[in-house]
């Protein structure tokens, strides 16, 4: 109904291997990105920026990172919060100690540090598998959380244990309003998402997926587990570290290790499960869903005019959140991305499905 791809022939290998083989898809995505850059700033207000758009975008970077590790390479990780903290504190320390560093370099360094830590904590994955590994990654989470709370050097000997970033500028151009922050984050997201999409389509991505589907069989056909698993940990931690630095610098401004506790890990894991394991699109859908859901649940009683105490609301929020998670898992265990694919397929044939 929406479109027909009839008449679009692929006449070269390049055309066959493009990210969006159908012209309408391609233009839709380009249009969406242009709209995000040009259209959204025309009407968006402070609240939309700081509470919805910026968190969704930053967390979708983290979700892409975790999706590379869990969705593509099959290694369940509960250490996302810890790796985000590594990114945030690495960026803070660079910005503090070398104030002249370019902002882009600061974030790249954050990703790089998270990558090193990720490699270190990825080593056990060569021996430990499945849920044993998932619990083992909690070791990384709790250790890192503890390290940033206790080692005074990381927080520059701040007596309160919380750190704050000063002026943020890019090439001498200050990023001080939500609108500018949004554009900056959006640019990062576009670059990183495109890179991730291409990575998982390439040699590395195929290695990861082979590892995920059956590691022994993959090993037998000549994929080195060390190489495949550690590269997944490295790339994933890089993304998560960048997301952590962005979260600290552009969303929070000042933070404590508690901002990156184990609940953050679960939040990002929820995103990729609800969004869809092993899809880049799912990372975005999941991030949007998990960020928007609590906001909606919070507003619901006041819209319906039901008087409930604040404590009561938070408990009911918990309940509804849990119930909705279960509901979505029961309805479509393969996530929102799968629902989207089904809807697209149905619409393509509608109203003549035969």
């Amino acid at each position, binding site marked *: 109904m929406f479109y027909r791809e009839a008449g679009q022939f692929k006449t070269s290998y390049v055309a066959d291997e493009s990210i969006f083989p159908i012209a309408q898809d391609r233009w839709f995505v380009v249009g969406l990105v242009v709209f995000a850059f040009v259209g959204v700033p025309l009407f968006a207000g402070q609240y939309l920026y700081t509470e919805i758009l910026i968190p969704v975008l930053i967390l979708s970077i983290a979700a892409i990172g975790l999706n590379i590790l869990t969705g593509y390479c099959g290694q369940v990780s509960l250490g996302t919060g810890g790796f985000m903290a590594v990114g945030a504190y690495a960026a803070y320390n660079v910005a503090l100690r070398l104030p002249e560093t370019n902002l882009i370099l600061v974030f790249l360094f954050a990703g790089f540090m998270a990558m090193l830590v990720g490699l270190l904590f990825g080593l056990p994955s060569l021996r430990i598998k499945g849920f044993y590994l998932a619990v083992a990654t*909690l070791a990384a989470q709790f250790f890192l959380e503890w390290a940033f709370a206790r*080692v005074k050097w990381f927080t520059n000997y701040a007596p309160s244990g919380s750190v704050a970033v000063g002026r943020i500028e890019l090439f001498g151009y200050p990023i001080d309003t939500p609108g500018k922050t949004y554009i900056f984050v959006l640019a990062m997201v576009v670059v990183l998402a495109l890179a991730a999409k291409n990575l998982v389509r390439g040699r590395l991505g195929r290695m990861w997926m082979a590892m995920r589907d059956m590691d022994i069989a993959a090993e037998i056909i000549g994929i080195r587990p060390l190489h495949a698993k550690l590269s997944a940990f490295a790339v994933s931690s890089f993304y998560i570290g960048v997301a952590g630095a962005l979260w600290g610098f552009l969303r929070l401004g000042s933070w404590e290790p508690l901002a990156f506790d184990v609940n953050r890990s679960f939040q990002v894991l929820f995103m990729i*499960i609800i969004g869809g394991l092993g899809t880049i699109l799912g990372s975005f859908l999941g991030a949007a869903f998990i960020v928007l859901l609590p906001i909606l649940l919070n507003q619901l009683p006041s819209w319906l005019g039901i008087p409930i105490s604040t404590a009561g609301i938070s408990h009911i929020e918990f309940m509804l959140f849990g119930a909705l*998670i*279960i509901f979505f898992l029961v309805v479509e265990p393969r996530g929102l991305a799968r629902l989207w694919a089904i809807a697209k397929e149905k619409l393509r044939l509608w109203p003549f499905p035969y």
Partner: protein
Amino acid sequence: MALGPVLETLIGGLLTGVLYSLVALGFVLIFKASGVFNFAQGAMVLFAALSFARLSEFLPLVVAFALAVLIMIALAYAIEFLVLRHLVNQDGIILFMATLGIAYFLEGFGQTIWGSDIYKIGLGLPTNPIFILESVFPGGLLIDPAELIAAVICAVLVLVLAVFFQVTRVGRALRAVADDHQAAQSVGIPLNQIWLMVWAVAGIVALVAGMMWGAKLGVQFSLSLIALKALPVLILGGFTSIPGAIVGGLIIGAGEKLAEVLLAPVLVRTFDLAGGGIENWFAYVLALVFLLFRPQGLFGERIIERV
């Protein structure tokens, strides 16, 4: 450091470890029978303890306990009927996420209907510390009798479960299901009933754990975080082994307390830290080290992989 205090820490740690293994036991039961990594065990402990604490405010202890058992069985039924039944044959991680959803739901639900203050559980346990071996060490070793009783209860529980698994008809069916779902089903074992049974048993174990922890710390939200303490116990002992949960609990409990007393001050001095508090991660790192040598845990079933 003198031997006396170290030994005292060791005993305290071992007794706390027993309480950890009580929580880990619930995990093991469910994982063994259905392959579900049940993250909601901590929330179940909280929910059971809350139910018991609020019921015992106006009912005699025995009646409150019986009612709480009934509530946990009803909960098991609800979980089986509303969640598990629809997720048969899904990946482990999907089921894991579903139990996370259950955990969120239970935490919210429990506090909505039972309230979110700190409640006391009065089991009438003796509270005066006991001193033992006064002839060997000056002043003797201090032991908390409540923890000692918890340890005894835990031992009895494990014994009962072991007999239940080995001797009874249901126990045999449970072991069959744990071995192979399909084979068990094909010889006529009703899978749904078995799952219901095992979740109910795990719920009752959670109730006992909740009563013990509740008597120790008071019943409050933080009780559901006990699950995070039980996880290293679980991977150390192996997901599928009941003795593993006990031994793992003892190792983790003792290791954690000893590390806090012996290792933390050294770390603080060497690295100029703002306080110790290594309890949170030490258990995990300890378990990780064990895992590097035995990837399936100390008592877990050997992982045999075929292509």
